[in-house]
């Protein structure tokens, strides 16, 4: 039960090079728009054809350039959820769900799926009469009815209101896990990825990075690009000084690391929530900003701490506990455990 992908494709000046293996469970492809996530999905589904490479699903070869194999999308048994759901506008909900059930669809099986997705009472409506969440349920029901061997989801929450999203994310995650098929989830939002997936692979300018377990990805993203995508606000170029110290060039600070520093470290990342103005246990780095700019956000303060020798300020986020504007006078603390060492 795995989807193995290793493909290259050139479109004008853009070069796609995707390489990953998605096992059972939700595999997230995280990347900015235009990074090649959707193109990767389209290649897997057979909508686009890669120039070279291999795509194997559960041992079945879907595409292999060296053997000149390229199955048509109809034969790949891959469910594809489009960002706008691509429901057939002229068909009722019921007909949409039955579209992927072959030439002689089983009506009772369709009833069962309509019930399961709580769209039985909508079965005679057409897509333009549905809300965003209902459309998503119909699209998902259509994919489940098709009995695919893998599921591809292209930004499935992009078209939804945010107050609905958490519920649908939960439902979708449960459903995908219960199906036990490889699912590739494409998103540009680290929150969605955190809610939905169990492993993460970053995509930048057409290239995939290494695949990491979800929590490991947020703890130690590995590369500068991955750290940015994971939402890290402070990233600085570093110079390795000795076995346990680095110079954060952009901040004009020297940090104590307290663990082995790999040779290829070029950057360090610090999450804005990992800084504190009160010392904690084992918070072994300290710095004194010379000035600060305080910005008020709806539920927290964002403070930009400028260090004497720094080129850019460090971003610090702190909750609005009593509504009092945070004062920047004393030193700030940071644990070496929370300094992420990053490669290029």
């Amino acid at each position, binding site marked *: 039960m795995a989807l193995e992908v290793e493909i290259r494709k050139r479109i004008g000046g853009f070069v796609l090079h995707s390489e990953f293996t998605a096992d059972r469970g939700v595999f997230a492809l995280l990347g900015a728009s235009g990074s090649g996530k959707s193109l990767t999905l389209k290649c897997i589904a*057979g909508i686009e054809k890669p120039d070279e490479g291999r795509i194997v699903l559960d041992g079945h070869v879907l595409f292999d350039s060296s053997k000149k194999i390229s199955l048509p999308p109809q034969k*790949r048994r*891959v469910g594809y959820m489009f960002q706008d759901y*691509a429901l*057939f*506008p002229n068909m009722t909900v019921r007909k949409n769900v039955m*579209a992927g059930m072959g030439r002689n669809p089983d009506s009772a099986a369709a009833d069962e799926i309509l019930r399961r997705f709580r769209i039985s009472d909508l079965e005679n409506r057409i897509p*333009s009469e549905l809300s965003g969440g209902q459309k998503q349920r119909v699209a998902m029901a259509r994919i489940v009815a098709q009995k695919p061997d893998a599921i591809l989801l292209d930004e499935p929450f992009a078209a939804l209101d945010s107050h609905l999203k958490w519920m649908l994310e939960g439902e979708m995650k449960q459903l995908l896990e219960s199906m036990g098929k490889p699912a590739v989830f494409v998103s540009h939002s680290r929150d969605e990825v955190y809610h939905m997936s169990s492993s993460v692979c970053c995509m930048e300018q057409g290239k995939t990075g290494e695949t990491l377990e979800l929590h490991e990805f947020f703890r130690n993203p590995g590369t500068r690009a991955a750290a940015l995508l994971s939402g890290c606000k402070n990233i600085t170029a570093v110079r390795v000084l000795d076995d346990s110290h680095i110079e954060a060039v952009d901040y004009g600070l020297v940090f104590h690391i307290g663990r082995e520093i790999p040779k290829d470290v070029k950057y360090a990342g610090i999450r804005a929530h990992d800084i504190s103005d009160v010392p904690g246990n084992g918070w072994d780095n300290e710095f004194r900003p010379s000035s600060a700019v305080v910005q008020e956000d709806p539920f927290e303060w964002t403070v930009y701490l400028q260090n004497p020798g720094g080129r850019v300020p460090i971003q610090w986020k702190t909750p609005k506990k009593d509504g009092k504007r945070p004062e920047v006078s004393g030193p700030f603390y940071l644990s070496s455990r929370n300094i992420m060492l990053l490669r290029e």
Partner: protein
Amino acid sequence: MEELFGVLQKADWSPLFISLKTGAVATVISFFLGIFGARKVVKAGPKVKAVADGILTLPMVLPPTVAGFILLIVFSLRRPVGQALYGTFHIKVVQTWLGCIVAATVISFPLMYRNARAAFEQIDVNLVYAARTLGMSEMRIFWTVIIPSAGPGIVSGTVLTFSRALGEYGATSMLAGNIPGRTGTISQKIAMVIQDGDYKTAGFWVLVILVIACLIIVAMNLAASKKLKHIRRY
């Protein structure tokens, strides 16, 4: 009023039937050829597209008499194509009802083709992709996804094609001539009686054309508005 009644009683209704028959047959032929041509052109590469589109649109741009002249040359019994058709199938195009159909089809075809092409081009490609990943055959996709989505364009193309074929004059008069009872369409009848200064008869046939045109367009619009519930009004 009495005058009109007199005209109605004496009227030879053959132009009406010839025009309706010609229009209907030409529309059916243009409908399939236009959709077929539009499909091919939409799928073609940019260079083939430019050339093919030019050729298929040409009859609309040319004056009908020029198109009629070319058709006359092609189908003339004194030339290869006309001779071959007559020799092998015993088919005569010039000065026959078949000529009416050929002329009306050629002239009305671009309207069907252009509308169908525009309709195909505005189809959301994701619908086609989704259909493919759902395992639907290309044939089934065409009839159940593409044609319904292209519905409004195809309906309006059909309406325009029929109206154009119904009233075709220039090419028809050159290819099929105006033989009363055989190739004499309403448009040709009007032109002929005007030359004789018979404005009453001309006015009568003008009225007939107006009524038919109005009826067709209203009927088609009603049919379309029912079938195309999924197209949003704005």
